[in-house]
């Protein structure tokens, strides 16, 4: 495993080289159309980012040169410096120097900065297009260019998801082979299958590793968010971030983004008091908000702690009793941790006023649902007058599967996309009763079609899978699934979207029912059953 610094360095170099390539392209474009503001703005933005990134990681030469170039382009943009041939030459030289410096990071050779070039840059920046000062000739240090390609590639998360699904399938088959090899008691087969076991395990780990991103990618968005909300709330807040380099699955981070934003808003609008109130109770005028992440074995713990007014347990109890969620006498004896759990109930809010940022009726229940849906946990710690902490325990990695959601007899179901072939809508007349099943011609292929409502919900003795009169409505939505190269059309009542789901295994005693691969929680908190296509196919074949 590479060290984190090494990884950061590689990412920086890859990004910087991309900027360098883009800058070369843009400046050539600018040379042809010196008046193009858009190109100028783009160059300006890139140099600015490059400067900031280089400074953050400690490459001061690069940030210095970028700064000088940025200033020069700033002047050009403000029409204080003309884009003359001489200036263009200096700028090209400057960008070349940047390229040299970036490439030099990873090589032993120390890049020497030509002092003449720096002087030239300083001259065009300082003299404000007053070209009385002569620009000196710069010794070109690279006449023969090397063309290099970056070591890093960008990849769509979708592709990684697909890879993850395939690995999941592979593991299922691997386990089957493993048990077969035991049954057959063939030594050679056993050796091969145990090797296969190790490789797939490694593969699974590598794919999971490729999906990890540092939590900083989310955390680093919060300083700005906190600034905006606290300004509008007229509060002063110091945000402290720790643990940005903790790694977590990118999809988990995606799912909790809104939740974390919600909690931060809450902390600022409801948690932390106004400066004058804080002064009164002897707290520092500036409120503190700490957002931290740490690893804990298989999970990542994210904590959001404020030093605000804390949760008033009495108020929560009162509100709970008023809403008939609990009897008054029972509420009195409840431990605080249980009282806080009321806050996660739908529609439970103590906020009196709706502000721009909080109290719009979206409550902590939404946060809870999101955390539940990825198999995480959330808990509150609070002390009145001292502050509140929200502690999120999240899995580092999840098996997120793309799935197709649908409804039969008002129950939500999902089928993993790995098993779905296509989706078609057919008129009832295009389905034919052949023997005791329904068949349809789908793209030239005769496919057996089964009405899922009939297969799942009609008493087994009454089941008639070949009876078209059992169908509801004229147009039928059919999901074509394939298993073992065998296609089967499943007629569903309502077809919903495609969605990424986290399949939770069924807990005992239900885990022995093989018709269901598991369950998943929808964003609404509703339970959705995940159908196991192999089992459904088997069940259908056995019924018939």
């Amino acid at each position, binding site marked *: 495993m590479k060290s984190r610094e090494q990884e950061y360095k590689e990412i920086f170099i890859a990004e910087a080289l991309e900027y360098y390539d883009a800058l070369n392209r843009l400046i050539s474009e600018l040379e042809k159309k010196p008046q193009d503001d858009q190109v100028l703005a783009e160059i300006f933005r890139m140099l600015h980012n490059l400067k900031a990134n280089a400074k953050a990681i400690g490459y001061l030469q690069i940030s210095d040169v970028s700064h000088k170039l940025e200033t020069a382009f700033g002047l050009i943009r403000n029409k204080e410096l003309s884009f003359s041939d001489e200036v263009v030459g200096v700028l090209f030289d400057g960008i070349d120097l940047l390229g040299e410096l970036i490439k030099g990071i990873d090589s032993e050779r120390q890049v020497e900065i030509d002092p003449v070039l720096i002087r030239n840059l300083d001259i065009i920046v300082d003299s404000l297009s007053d070209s009385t000062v002569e620009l000196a000739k710069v010794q070109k240090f690279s006449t023969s260019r090397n063309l290099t390609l970056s070591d890093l590639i960008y990849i769509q998360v979708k592709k990684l998801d697909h890879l993850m699904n395939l690995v999941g399938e592979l593991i299922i088959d691997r386990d089957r082979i493993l048990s077969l090899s035991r049954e057959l008691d063939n030594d050679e087969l056993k050796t091969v299958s145990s090797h296969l076991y190790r490789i797939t395990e490694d593969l699974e780990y590598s794919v999971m590793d490729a999906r990890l991103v540092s939590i900083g990618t989310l955390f680093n968005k919060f300083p700005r968010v906190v600034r905006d909300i606290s300004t509008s709330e007229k509060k002063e807040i110091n945000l402290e971030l720790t643990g940005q380099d903790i790694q977590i699955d990118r999809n988990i981070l995606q799912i909790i983004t809104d939740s974390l934003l919600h909690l931060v808003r809450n902390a600022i609008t409801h948690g932390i008091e106004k400066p004058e109130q804080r002064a009164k109770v002897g707290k520092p005028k500036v409120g503190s908000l700490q957002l931290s992440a740490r690893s804990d074995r298989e999970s990542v713990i994210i904590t959001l702690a404020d030093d605000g007014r804390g949760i008033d347990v009495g108020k929560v109890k009162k509100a709970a009793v008023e809403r008939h969620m609990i009897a008054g006498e029972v509420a009195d004896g409840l431990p605080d941790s*249980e009282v806080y759990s009321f806050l996660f109930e739908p529609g439970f809010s103590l906020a009196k006023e709706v502000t721009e940022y909080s109290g719009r009726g979206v409550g902590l229940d939404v946060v809870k649902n999101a955390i539940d849906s990825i198999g995480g946990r959330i808990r509150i710690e609070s002390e009145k007058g001292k502050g509140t902490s929200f502690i999120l325990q999240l899995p580092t990695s999840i098996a997120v599967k793309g799935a197709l959601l649908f409804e039969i007899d008002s129950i939500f179901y999902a089928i993993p996309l790995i098993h779905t072939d296509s989706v078609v809508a057919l008129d009832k007349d295009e389905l034919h009763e052949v023997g005791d099943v329904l068949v349809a011609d789908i793209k030239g292929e005769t496919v057996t079609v089964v009405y899922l409502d009939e297969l799942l919900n009609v008493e087994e003795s009454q089941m008639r899978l070949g009876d078209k009169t059992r169908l509801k409505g004229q147009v039928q939505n059919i999901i074509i699934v394939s298993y073992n190269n065998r296609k089967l059309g499943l007629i569903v009542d309502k077809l919903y979207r495609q969605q990424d789901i986290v399949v939770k295994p069924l807990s005992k005693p239900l885990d022995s029912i093989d018709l269901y691969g598991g369950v998943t929680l929808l964003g609404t908190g509703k339970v959705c059953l995940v159908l196991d296509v192999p089992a459904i196919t088997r069940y259908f074949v056995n019924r018939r």
Partner: protein
Amino acid sequence: MKEKTNKKEGQPTTGVVESGPDNAAALANQKLAKAEAVKEEMIHLIVFKLGAEEYGIKIEQVKEVTVTPNVTRMPRTPDFIKGVANIRGDIIAIMNLEERFGIRPVPLADDLNPRITYTLVIEAKEYSIGVIVREVPQSLNLSMTKIDKAPSFLQDININENYIEGIAKVNNRLIIVLDMYKILTQDEIRELKIN
């Protein structure tokens, strides 16, 4: 309405859903009973009705009592499995003991809302399950001596009812004490499998 029990805290007063004016008195009684109980061994039951009879489960086996949440039916499971529900992020099976034991349901009292039922979340050794009851369960503290551990009639019942732990008799009430850990035996689990 929602209550939770917390057996770790061992607070009998938080153990049960109870409403109405009787509650305070009942709690006071419990406290009194508790004070007296120092010498003799006590048992704390959650009592609920199935059919016309009263049944009890030891409080240690009850994780929480809640108003039955949305239950998602699971086709092709035995009838007594009502489906699965999301209780605090855990997805657990919800079952109806009346159907499980073939107990004849009785009409509900007029003053009870037929649409609201309660779920006892039972914590078995390896998993949790939810048990639906129609009336608010009550909490009852009684001496161990009130429980007949091996009533002779048990031999008269032809099926193996080993989930009955005993019969409690208190103030003319007869309470059937169930051992929930035995309620889902291996046989039942096997029955859940299809094919």
